[in-house]
């Protein structure tokens, strides 16, 4: 086990180098990393890392570590894979994530934004290598996402993949990344499973999860609506919706003292919820819509249209911009949680919003912040580690404490790779109170991280086994 056997892809990389000697044509090497080395390695077995790395010079000690995943990074560029939904239910988020990613790439290479504020980052690429990127379309479908990520890994030699926007996608991709020993930075994924039963060593999540939504939301809605209420849930029938409704049931029952009438699954991508909505029983006091993206953009307006808001309270556990805009006339007063808000009065938030607005003429959604921060955090960890060698980067991120991502103090817990951070409880704004079409939500409460979370053996973390670093 110590001297890890070369995996298929180690050998691929080695032989690609050998092939370059013969033919100067590398498989899918998009970043001009050709013609490195003098031709010494025979591309077979063992390390396979090219000691004669001509281009970038210091790629952070490739001589010290064996090759693993897409390490070592050859040439003077490094490729990140941005795997976002460009079509399907969550494509709106994907669009904004991509903006965040591109901005991060730009800042990493040229300075600006958080790069100027974070000590770890230089604005001269990462470890002196220029950051390049490749985009993929997950189509909000786990299999498509996996295939896309797999291409980024073998075709484009991406050293890190990031993306998500659907927990089903994030989980599917992070499993692949664990197998391939390529780091995955979760973007928008809120299911408990991502850092719970499906957690992996090679993936980190900065976003909060459904469990924390329950913890943050329950006391607020209890105070607002009272105790002894009956609630009824609809949920999107995949990992996020399933854990989301379970967490809502748990905390609304335990903390708010409410009782659940029923919880009904709806297929992801349903466009007409009228049949489900007309089923909501008369004795329900609260309707919980565990929908997101396109689903929520259909279900919430349809619920309002049906007049449900006149006879009961509606809660949308996880807010997003598309849904808020789609239902913009009717979200007034509806409670939910959000990852972050561009109106937060905080220095890192402000500098990010500023540079984002400068670039795209609109404020960022929280999906964009997640994309931006996940890329920055990976880059910073690489700089601290002084190498792209994945196990070292991972160890650098584990149990890392930081306060420079716009939400105050945060801890990336090493035992389950879940960030423990504040969660925002928000409420839709009345149309009259808005400054712009992007000013839709009121932050009711920034629930401090001390009031949230769970021990390493509790809640979702109880089921988490991270797996190997790859250098054991």
């Amino acid at each position, binding site marked *: 086990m110590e001297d890890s056997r070369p995996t*298929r892809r180690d050998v691929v990389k080695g032989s690609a180098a050998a092939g370059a000697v013969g033919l100067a044509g590398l498989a899918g090497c998009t970043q001009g990393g050709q013609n490195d080395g003098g031709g010494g390695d025979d591309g077979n077995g063992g390390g396979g890392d090219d000691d004669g790395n001509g281009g970038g010079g210091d790629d952070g000690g490739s001589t010290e570590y064996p090759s693993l995943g897409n390490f070592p990074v050859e040439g003077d560029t490094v490729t990140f894979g941005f795997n976002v939904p460009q079509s399907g239910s969550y494509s709106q988020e994907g669009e904004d994530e991509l903006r965040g990613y591109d901005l991060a790439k730009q800042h990493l290479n040229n300075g600006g934004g958080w790069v100027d504020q974070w000590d770890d980052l230089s604005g001269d690429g990462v470890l002196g290598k220029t950051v390049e990127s490749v985009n993929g379309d997950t189509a909000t479908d786990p299999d498509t996402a996996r295939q896309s990520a797999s291409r980024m890994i073998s075709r484009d030699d991406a050293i890190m993949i990031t993306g998500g926007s659907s927990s*089903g996608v994030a989980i599917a991709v992070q499993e692949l990344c664990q197998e391939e020993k390529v780091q995955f930075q979760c973007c928008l994924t809120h299911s408990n499973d991502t850092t719970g039963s499906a957690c992996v060593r090679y993936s980190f999540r900065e976003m909060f999860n459904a469990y924390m939504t329950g913890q943050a939301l329950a006391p607020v809605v209890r105070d607002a609506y009272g105790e002894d209420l009956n609630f009824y849930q609809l949920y999107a*029938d*995949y990992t996020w919706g399933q854990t989301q409704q379970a967490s809502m049931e748990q905390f609304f029952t335990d903390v708010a003292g409410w009782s659940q009438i029923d919880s009904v699954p709806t*297929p992801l991508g349903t466009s007409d919820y009228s049949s489900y909505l007309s089923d909501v029983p008369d004795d329900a006091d609260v309707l919980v819509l565990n929908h997101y993206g396109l689903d929520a953009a259909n279900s919430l307006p349809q619920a309002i249209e049906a007049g449900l808001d006149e006879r009961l309270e509606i809660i949308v556990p996880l807010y997003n911009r598309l849904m808020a805009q789609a239902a913009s006339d009717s979200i007034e007063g509806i409670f939910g949680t959000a990852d972050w808000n561009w109106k937060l009065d905080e220095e890192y938030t402000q500098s990010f919003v500023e540079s984002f607005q400068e670039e795209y003429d609109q404020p960022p959604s929280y999906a964009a912040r997640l994309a931006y921060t996940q890329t920055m955090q990976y880059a910073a960890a690489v700089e601290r580690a002084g190498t792209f060698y994945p196990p070292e980067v991972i160890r650098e991120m584990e149990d890392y404490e930081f306060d420079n991502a716009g939400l105050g103090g945060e801890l990336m817990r090493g035992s389950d790779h879940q960030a423990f951070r504040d969660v925002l409880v928000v409420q839709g704004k009345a149309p009259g109170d808005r400054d712009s079409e992007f000013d839709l939500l009121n932050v009711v409460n920034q629930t401090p991280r001390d009031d949230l979370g769970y021990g390493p053996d509790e809640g979702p973390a109880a089921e988490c086994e991270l797996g190997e670093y790859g250098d054991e």
Partner: protein
Amino acid sequence: MSRDGDTPVETDGGTVVDDADSGSGSIGGPIGEAYRSLRENEFSVVIGSALFLVVFPYLLIEGMGMLNESLGDPGIGGYEGLASLVLIYGIIVIGFNLLLGYTELLSFGHAAFFGTAAYSAALLSSTAEISFAGFSATMPGITSPIAMLVFGTALATLLAWPIGFMSIRRSGVYFAVLTLTFGQMLYFFALGPGSGITNGDNGFSDVNVGSLLGMVDFGEPVSQFGALYLPVIGNFEIPFLVSLDYVPIEYVFVAVLFLLALTVANRIVNSPYGLIFEALGENEQRVEFVGLNVFRYKLMAFIISGAFAGMGGALFVMHESFIHPATALYWIQSGDFVIMTVLGGTGSLIGPVFGAFIFEYIANVISGATIPVIGEIGSLWRLILGAVFVFIVWVFPRGAYGALVDLKKFLVRAVESLVWAVRNPSEAPGAFTDWLRGVGRGIATWLRGVGRGVTSRVRGMLSLVGVGGGS
């Protein structure tokens, strides 16, 4: 649908345009004869394919890599997983073509067999707890690739029987809709009620592919095992053997099965059975009058194609280690099989494989390319694919492979004639006229293909303003 099929491509009888033996006579000579008999020989088809399969990964990666370099690195190289993927889809479309190309039954539901095999192979290898309608079971965790393949293919074949039995009763669009309907029912089952088995929309990831025959892992490179491996002899590298370095055992496994599938299909096509399939596509009634049981033969073709799709599905899940209802069972997947088959060309056995290659190459490689003006192609790849597809259907009804074959035939004949003309200077002028005529005919055929759309459109427009009769 009873339209008099005056499509110029299909002359009565043979599927291949028989212009070779019309006038030019014995130009090929003994060499041509030998070449032709070699071509006829089934065995040689298999050997030829086998040789190609050995160099295929090399061509795909190094060849395309070189092209990529010469174009200034727009990102159109190849990569190692792609070769297996192309062959997996190749197996599926070879079978699909037996149905579409020979018996002319267009199925929009073959994802059902693909997906069923994928899920059953995956389940066999997993140790997951599954449940449905109150029953639950723990999966056995049999990870042998061969067992997975056999199990998946068997279940797909078993499923193809009843679905075929019901669908074959209808023809044309009703057959297409029926197959689509069964496929979609399975898709929604896997997504909803059956999610206790399939893990629903989360996708099924507990796929464990064990070692082959208890000896080699799928991911290991061939070079570690095969006696074939001859890395470096002094300073002399045998180019494609170097490629074995990055060829995983999985590819060898897939390639062998691909070869098997091709052999079987070739056998079928060249057997009396295959002739009947073909006859069914051309004129069902005639077959019936001869006293053959049309239904039985159609069903057989359907089941065989289902088995091939199942084989591909089992291999696919081993390749991806993950399966989701949308990839496994959604009708778009069935549509992709149709696109691949038609893209490559339904007229020959190997044509659809060509289509699978074009499809997968556009989907996996061209999608990452960067071109001027538009930038990275990304998710636009389906637009390119759609355009290529429509163009092919419109202009080359025999597919890309058919077009290539025509081109090759034309070139071969040109070269043969030239050689002959040099040898027989006295007769050359006369033969030259013949040759010219041949060229003319070739061009005319092609033009007719292109012009077909134009003429009938013009005819349509004329008739719209009241000139001329109906079409």
